[in-house]
């Protein structure tokens, strides 16, 4: 158990250090893989530059005006801002990220997009979400759950903050079969 907890802490630190060290996101090439022109026009260029996701959860999330949406692992805010546009000022968009510098980027991009009035970014961990029980209608995330060494705990936390009948819509990567141990055990593979 102690070894397992140490391993979890090591993974957490590795992921946080990797994200803190990068100077930019995956950029427009990757963003264009997941978002169409109309969607990209909704967000400022800085949010596109900081795109690090692996899909487009907002497109599948059936967001409507007035809903409260939580973006777990919001990064530079591209999905938070798209979600904010859909829930509108009658709703609320909350970006959650473990790195304060990512939250700052999200705030800057939300202000540039003009959605800052109903959008906020909070620093926190997906395994310990700083929100009350049953306070969210829809939780989205994009390439984030796989970064957690405690995925079941993170899902339990998302379940806790969702209101009854609330929904989760996540983009992520799945792997069938084994990766070579040289890849699976590499620290940047965890962070990636």
């Amino acid at each position, binding site marked *: 158990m102690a070894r397992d907890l140490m391993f979890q802490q090591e993974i957490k630190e590795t992921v946080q250090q990797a994200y803190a060290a990068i100077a930019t996101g995956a950029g427009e090439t990757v963003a264009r893989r997941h978002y169409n022109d109309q969607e990209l026009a909704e967000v400022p260029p800085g949010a596109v530059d900081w795109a690090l996701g*692996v899909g487009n959860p907002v497109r599948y999330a059936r967001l409507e005006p007035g809903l409260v949406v939580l973006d777990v692992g919001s990064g530079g805010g591209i999905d938070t801002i798209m979600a904010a546009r859909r829930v509108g000022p009658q709703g609320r968009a909350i970006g959650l990220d473990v790195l304060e510098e990512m939250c700052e980027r999200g705030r800057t991009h939300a202000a540039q997009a003009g959605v800052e009035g109903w959008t906020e970014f909070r620093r926190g961990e997906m395994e310990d979400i700083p929100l009350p029980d049953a306070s969210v209608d829809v939780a989205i995330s994009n390439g984030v759950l796989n970064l957690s060494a405690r995925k079941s705990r993170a899902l*339990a936390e998302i379940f806790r903050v969702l209101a009854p009948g609330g929904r989760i819509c996540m983009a992520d990567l799945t792997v069938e079969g084994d990766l070579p141990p040289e890849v699976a055990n590499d620290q940047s593979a965890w962070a990636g």
Partner: protein
Amino acid sequence: MAERVFAGKLHRAGFADVWVGGHRPFGIDQAALYPLFTPEVIQVMRETIPADRQDHVASGVIVKARRPQ
């Protein structure tokens, strides 16, 4: 994480109506676009993953579920 493991974790957390779709192949060339994958690990991937799997190392998926009323 395998797709069935992902779905199982959602069920165990209490979620209902778990749906997995929108599958898209994710290969080494895509991984190389992300700054979080170092050139070293990309090189290791190219050297150790069989050529016929290199364009589909993982799948990008959309996972949806609902907290019951």
